[in-house]
């Protein structure tokens, strides 16, 4: 690990968060470098799983992962694949998810978990809130600012959805950083030498390839490419389908309609997949409802099965090399990121393509979060010698006549990047001009991704063609589009009404923030009650035991009655949902049993003395 030029003043803490498809992590920068913050259970990875229980409680992480088996239709995993997406985009893979989609999910997907509905940013916000809590518990101070990583190939809507999730979770998102770029920061590759680096990032649900030029602490991304729907999940789904077919044949039963069975089988195939990175052969094993399924799978078969998936990463790699304007020989180092790069076939494919042995010194699950923490340090001023210059992964354009896209900002432009276009009116007295903004590389509107429609409103009524509205499209350092407009004749700011094609409006996000603050209060209240009840349980158990101790009979009649009364009081307030009342009863019981405790102590001491020869 490299050393960092650090100047720790009294500043707001900024944490780095990797909001992953499978697991999420939070890290911070201390004097020795970036560190992962473990949760209370000691786990460094928080599974990106959220469950809404029948009792109305939201469970996140490892506990939710357990609930995936018993309450699959109330539990969400891999929600990252749904971020910033429309129903049409994910229809195919939705049948593999155990949860249901609510009606009215066309522009923002709504997940139906029991009685409640959640959008993907809200689900992600629960994960972020858990990470925030872990960081606060560890650092002993409030944490309100964060850098969050996103796949480099995320489009505008997916980035905006991630930012929304941060806001809903009560985090000011100072920057969205691309995951491969963050990984390169964590490696501190700039300390070794200047040169060209390729970062190959195959995670649970997304694939990115980025090529960077390193020069005296500047990390300049030359090009990026990828697929936001390609990752370890696809391998799991492939194995799952095969196992389901096997079971259909062996048991004569279609397990795919049995949510719990599917989730147990999913866990079995994931275990087998992970094992195959280290052993040449293993079994997929399911023991369910008194039936048993065992299938042996060796690495040769596994490799054959996943070859098409691994091959899908190679096209983007070649395109990226070409866009970066370098040749394979120019690339000095290759870095592997993401859990799926543990697979030997993936490593071999990377090695063959780049003709170099890839770096694997850092844990591929943690390297992105570590890099996010370094970027957090850059933003808070703690790290002064490094600077990231990232690019936009997709070209930005507007719809013109005939459904053709006119490109304004080309892919792989360094961000922030901007373009200015002038628009005019076609009809006398026209007051509005509608602009349709798209992202993608194709020529036609129907082949690109609709980002938003911008309505330039309240244009001065003038003859056709006379109005001149200058519109500035600016992609900020987060890769998110901002649009401003100015009437060139009057110099006046022009109002722009934005209708995002996919995702939440600002008003919807604001509403969710308010709701989440209320919920957070409820959650806090519930936690205090639960804590008081746990303490009550402990003292009640102890007193129950003490009543069977000879010391109890040594109390006066009055003292004994006082103890009994205090016990009954506590039992009464126990279910009151009022932690103040519970705590007061606990204290009363403590006071009433003081004498008893002293007597017991004396008895213990004297019996101990009896057994000792002086």
């Amino acid at each position, binding site marked *: 690990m490299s050393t960092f030029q650090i100047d720790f003043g009294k*500043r707001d803490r900024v944490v780095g968060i990797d909001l992953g498809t499978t697991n999420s992590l939070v890290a911070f920068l201390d004097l020795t470098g970036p560190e992962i913050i473990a949760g209370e259970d000691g786990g460094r990875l928080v599974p990106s799983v959220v469950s809404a229980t029948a009792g109305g409680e939201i469970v996140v992480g490892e506990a939710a992962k357990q609930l995936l088996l018993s309450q699959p239709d109330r539990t969400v995993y891999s929600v990252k694949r749904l971020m910033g997406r429309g129903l049409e985009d994910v229809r195919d893979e939705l049948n593999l998810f155990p949860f249901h989609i609510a009606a009215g999910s066309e522009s923002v997907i709504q997940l139906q978990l029991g009685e409640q509905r959640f959008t993907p940013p809200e689900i992600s916000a629960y994960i972020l809130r858990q990470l925030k809590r872990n960081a606060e518990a560890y650092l002993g101070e409030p944490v309100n600012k964060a850098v969050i990583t996103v796949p480099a190939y995320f489009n505008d809507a997916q980035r905006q959805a991630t930012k929304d999730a941060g806001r809903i979770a009560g985090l000011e998102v*100072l*920057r969205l950083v691309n995951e491969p770029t963050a990984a390169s920061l964590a490696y501190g590759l700039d300390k070794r030498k200047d040169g060209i680096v390729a970062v190959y990032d195959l995670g649970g649900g997304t694939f990115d390839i980025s090529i960077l030029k390193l*020069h*005296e602490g*500047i990390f*300049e991304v030359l090009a990026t490419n990828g697929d936001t729907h390609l990752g370890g999940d696809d391998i799991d789904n492939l194995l799952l389908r095969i196992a389901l077919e096997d079971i259909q044949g062996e048991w004569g039963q279609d397990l795919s309609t049995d949510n719990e069975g599917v989730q147990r089988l999913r866990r079995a195939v994931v275990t087998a997949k992970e094992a195959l990175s280290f052993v040449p052969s293993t079994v997929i094993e399911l023991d369910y409802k008194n039936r048993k399924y065992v299938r042996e799978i060796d690495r040769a078969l596994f490799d054959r099965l996943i070859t098409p998936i691994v091959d899908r990463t190679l096209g983007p790699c070649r395109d990226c090399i070409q866009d970066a304007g370098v040749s394979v020989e120019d690339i000095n180092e290759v870095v592997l990121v993401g859990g799926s790069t543990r697979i030997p076939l993936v490593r071999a494919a990377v090695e063959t393509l780049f003709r170099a042995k890839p770096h694997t010194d850092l844990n591929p699950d943690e390297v992105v979060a570590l890099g996010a923490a370094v970027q957090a340090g*850059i*933003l*808070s*001023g703690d790290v002064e010698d490094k*600077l*990231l*210059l990232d690019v936009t992964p997709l070209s930005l354009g507007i719809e*013109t006549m005939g459904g053709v896209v006119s490109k*304004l900002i080309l892919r792989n*432009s*360094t*961000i*922030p*990047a*901007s*373009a*200015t*276009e*002038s*628009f*005019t009116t076609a009809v006398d007295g026209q007051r509005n001009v509608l602009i349709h903004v798209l992202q993608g590389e194709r020529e036609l509107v129907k082949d690109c991704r609709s980002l938003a429609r911008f309505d330039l409103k309240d244009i001065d009524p003038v003859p056709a063609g006379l109005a*001149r509205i200058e519109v500035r499209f*600016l*992609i*900020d*350092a987060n890769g998110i589009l901002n649009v401003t407009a100015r009437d060139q004749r009057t110099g006046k700011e022009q109002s722009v009404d934005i209708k995002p094609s996919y995702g939440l409006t600002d008003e919807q996000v604001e509403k969710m923030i308010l709701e989440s603050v209320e919920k957070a209060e409820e959650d806090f209240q519930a936690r205090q009650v639960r804590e008081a009840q746990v303490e009550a349980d402990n003292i009640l158990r102890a007193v129950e035991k003490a009543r069977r101790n000879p010391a109890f009979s040594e109390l006066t009649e009055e003292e004994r009655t006082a103890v009994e009364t205090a016990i009954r009081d506590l039992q009464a307030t126990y279910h009151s949902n009022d932690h103040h009342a519970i705590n007061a009863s606990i204290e009363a019981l403590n006071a009433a049993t003081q004498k008893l405790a002293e007597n017991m102590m004396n008895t213990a001491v004297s019996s101990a003395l009896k057994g000792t020869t002086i």
Partner: protein
Amino acid sequence: MAAGPHSPRDPGVTGYYELFGMERRLVLDPAQLQKRFYELSRELHPDRFVRKSEAERENALDASSRLNDAYRTLRDPVQRAMYVLSEEGFDIGEQRSGDVPPELLEEVFELNMALEELRGGDETARPQLEAAGRNFEAMLAGIGDQLASLFERWDANPARETLAEIRGVLNRRKYIQNLLREVEKNVHVSN
């Protein structure tokens, strides 16, 4: 819809060369340009202004997007020349479809015939198209050399005739590029 990205800029907005603190020359040293770009990025990038006021943050966003736009333009010889042309008041809008460079008229005529034959399923046209493709590639390489010497000439003596000549060469280059794309698309599709 009217002005493109190279419309004359507002007076008061710093030009790309001024931003880089460089003289307006068509031949630039890429290493020098990159060095300046990195130095200015360290000063202007939004990362440096996260803890500042909203107004300062807005300014940084503005300044660094302009810096990036400038670097993107100046590092590419063709973009750079187009920028200088627009700064010098030349119209570099979309050329009209009838503007076939006269020296290419015959080639274009034959090419269109060959393309039609191939689309009609006549495979004998393929070698002719492939030869045309190689020819266009050679022409583009020649244009690169031609531009390089015109750049030097303008740097030594900034005369408008030289710029006019550069504009002519750029238009020809674009035209040939389009032809080449057309050839590649058809040869590829029917492969």
